[in-house]
């Protein structure tokens, strides 16, 4: 893939997964003009501080030591994505310094940020996503802080968000925290309850339980594009709209601005642009003969849909760059996987990113995910009242309904992308995993006879248990390949 900037051209090397040191060396080939060009918060102009294109070694030196063990895609677009994602903490502090309002979202996983982006100079972000930090930093500091505040290891890794909130070294003090409760996990609720006791400015947003109406009218054959659709009862939408109005009053108070429906319509267009790009990249990647982009980058990309890593315009630009790269690779018959790679769908995002590296190391490839953020992947409806679209989006969430409805999302992908195996990476002591995993397996087996592997992701530093996961994944991929051969 050639990336052009004015008359300057950078050409990606042959697609491969490379280590930190290799990226460090490769980075020397990237013209300075590119480093200067890729910026976040472009509306702030060119400043010393708002570039983000750095090799992984830069973030390694800042503390993300785990990066030295990971493998990365070697394209410029993927490097942009990594730099942009890893730079988010710094970006939030810069936003605060620049006078923007910082809104922490918790628990809704992508449903509410479009509303926040519609307020001028107002930035959403997810403390929930700091659950990756203990792994990336090879440090238990955030878990220890959460434990000091009463939430120990019987809670899912999302307790790192409590540690981060308490320390306020990972993001600045939010102007408002929107905490989504109701049909959400117990562990997340406990984390939010504890954060509330730290005396931050909070707004509680109730998410209703989505009861199965009993009939699924969104069957894949009639509605191929809408892999992400869920069905729900109409009175729930009325309720969510009311909750949106409550939230709007609070946002108006915090930002000092009036809610503008037209601004939200404009934001929804941008959000759909981002989600559309992510959909297309995933579809190209999952359908291609050779997988054009590694699983880890695909996860980073999927999570860009939550809050655009706090900069919507730049996120869209990066997703477009990545789509061009992926399309070009597929067009040229290039990829990072073998022809006979085991086609795997991954359920629940692994807090330990190296597990996604293992998939390809062992001869597998990703052909689908259910990373509990269905609500942020689906395109929002173009209803004249944008709050109706937002509410509908929220009611498509992965975890607010039954396991059967969540499994439906997986079954559609198995069918569409010919999956040969399923990996479920459980989060130990998470209230949904402990109940869902056995049901998901049962529901999949009602329809498909494919191998399913489930395991608990282990906490940072537990090397022996992690090696057991590697052994199990090895046997799993071998089983799939053996099945293919026979």
């Amino acid at each position, binding site marked *: 893939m050639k990336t052009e900037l004015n008359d300057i051209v950078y050409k990606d090397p042959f697609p491969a997964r490379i280590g930190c040191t290799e990226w460090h060396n490769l980075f020397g080939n990237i013209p300075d003009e590119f480093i200067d060009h890729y910026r976040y918060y472009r509306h702030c102009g060119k400043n010393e501080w708002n570039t983000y294109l750095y090799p992984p070694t830069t973030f390694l030196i800042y503390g993300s030591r785990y990066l030295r063990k990971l493998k990365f895609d070697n394209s410029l677009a993927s490097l942009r994505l990594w730099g942009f994602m890893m730079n988010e903490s710094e970006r939030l502090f810069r936003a605060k310094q620049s006078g923007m309002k910082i809104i922490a979202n918790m628990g809704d996983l992508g449903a509410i940020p479009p509303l926040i982006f519609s307020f001028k100079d107002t930035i959403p972000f997810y403390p929930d996503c700091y659950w990756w930090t203990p792994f990336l930093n090879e440090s238990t500091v955030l878990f220890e802080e959460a434990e000091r505040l*009463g939430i120990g290891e019987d809670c899912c890794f999302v307790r790192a968000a409590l540690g981060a909130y308490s320390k306020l070294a990972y993001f600045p003090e939010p102007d408002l925290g929107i905490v989504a409760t*109701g049909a959400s996990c117990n562990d997340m*609720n406990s984390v939010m309850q504890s954060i509330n006791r730290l005396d931050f400015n909070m707004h509680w947003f109730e998410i209703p339980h989505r009861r199965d109406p009993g009939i699924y009218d969104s069957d894949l054959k009639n509605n191929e594009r809408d892999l992400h659709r869920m069905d729900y009862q109409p*009175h729930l939408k009325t309720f969510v709209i009311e909750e949106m109005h409550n939230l709007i009053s609070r946002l108006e108070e915090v930002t000092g601005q009036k809610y503008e429906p037209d601004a939200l319509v404009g934001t929804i267009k941008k959000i759909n642009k981002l989600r559309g790009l992510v959909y297309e990249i995933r579809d190209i990647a999952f359908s291609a003969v050779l997988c054009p982009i590694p699983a880890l980058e695909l996860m980073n990309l999927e999570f860009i849909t939550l809050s655009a890593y706090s900069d919507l315009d730049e996120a869209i630009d990066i997703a477009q760059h990545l789509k061009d790269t992926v399309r070009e690779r597929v067009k040229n018959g290039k990829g990072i996987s073998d022809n006979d790679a085991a086609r795997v769908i991954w359920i629940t995002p692994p807090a330990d990113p190296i597990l996604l590296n293992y998939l390809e190391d062992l001869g597998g490839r990703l052909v689908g995910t259910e990373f509990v953020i269905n609500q942020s992947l689906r395109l929002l409806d173009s209803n004249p009242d944008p709050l109706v679209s937002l509410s509908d989006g929220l009611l498509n969430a992965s975890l607010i309904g039954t396991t059967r409805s969540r499994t439906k999302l997986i079954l559609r992908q198995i069918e569409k992308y010919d999956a040969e195996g399923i990996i479920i990476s459980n989060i130990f*002591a*998470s209230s949904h995993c*402990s109940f869902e995993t056995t*049901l998901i397996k049962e529901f999949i087996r009602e329809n498909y006879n494919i191998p399913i592997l489930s395991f608990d992701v282990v906490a940072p530093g537990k090397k022996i248990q992690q090696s057991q996961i590697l052994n199990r994944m090895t046997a799993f991929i071998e089983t799939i390949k053996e099945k293919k051969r026979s």
Partner: protein
Amino acid sequence: MSKLIDFLSKLNKNRRNELRALKNTGRIITGYFCHYVPVEIIEACGCIPVRIKDNLNDKYETAGRKHIQRDSCSFCKAALGSLVDNSEFTNLVYGTTCDQLRRLNEHISEKTDIDSFLFHAPRTHDKNSTLNLYRDEIFLLIEKLTARSKTEYRNEQLLERVEEWNKLRSFVNEIQRQRIDQPPVVTGREFFYLLSTAYFLGPESFLKVSDEIMEFIKTKETSREPLRIFLAGSIICTADDHLLNIIEEQSRAVIVGDNTCTGSGWMNNPLQYKQNIFENLLKNQFDNAQCPNKMPNDSLYEFTDKQIEKTKPDGIIYRSLKFCHPWNFEAKAFKNRYNIPFLHIDTDYSKANIGQIKTRVHAFYEMIIARKSEDRIK
């Protein structure tokens, strides 16, 4: 064995037989989880409410473990194991107060033929939107229950049921008041049995034996100066009998107050009614649940503050069930809030750790006694 518990056990046994007979005649026996579920409405819909918490034990917990993972709450595992094994219920009702309960519903629906209904019990309050949702959901509950019982729901019937339950609440609250006295008139174990029986029998049957119960209480021998213990934490059910025994054995200590999912808070709020009974009932349920999963859960602490002030305990024993997140993660806040000796026991229904719990409880009591002696000397 306490004479009162002996008496109550017989009542429970008879009631269980009576329910079986009623079920055979076509009456609807509705099992329900959590006190967010309004019993008066279940009755007004022609069904008989029975809270699911009795008959649970460690064997059922192990049985439930076959269907859900080990890192799920012991109560849910035991309830699942019990209901899959043998159910005396026609249908089940759940509120979404706890995510694990919400998900338990689906397991039970998949593995048994019991009809079930899960309604959204809002966690946030002080706003019309969530009250409106709660109302919508209770309407759906009524629709579901009346369809099953083929009975028409009427507000007059609801009012009558509310009046009956209020009489029961008043009676239990009177015992609760006397429980605070020194020496306490009933042990905590007796009180939990009493409360459980009251709910199991329902107002009419239970109040018929109220005089006999008061007689047991009046003639009861009490130890002179037991340590006064406040019990807080996860649901207390039959599987916890050994725990209550350990806390109160040899009459060294008595549980004088509590805040648990099934304790005195359950009877705490007689309904102020007369007009618009349905709305008042909703408001009462909505505003007064002392649930750790309320967001924020200030009402949990407001209730506990009052209880602690009234009961003046020497120590707090805080029992959380393994992987019961809502209670487990409140332990620290409880400990920090009350300047009272505090013991946190995080356990399941297994009896394998009885010895360890005994040792910890005894050490806790010795520490309290030593402190009290020091205070006297000072």
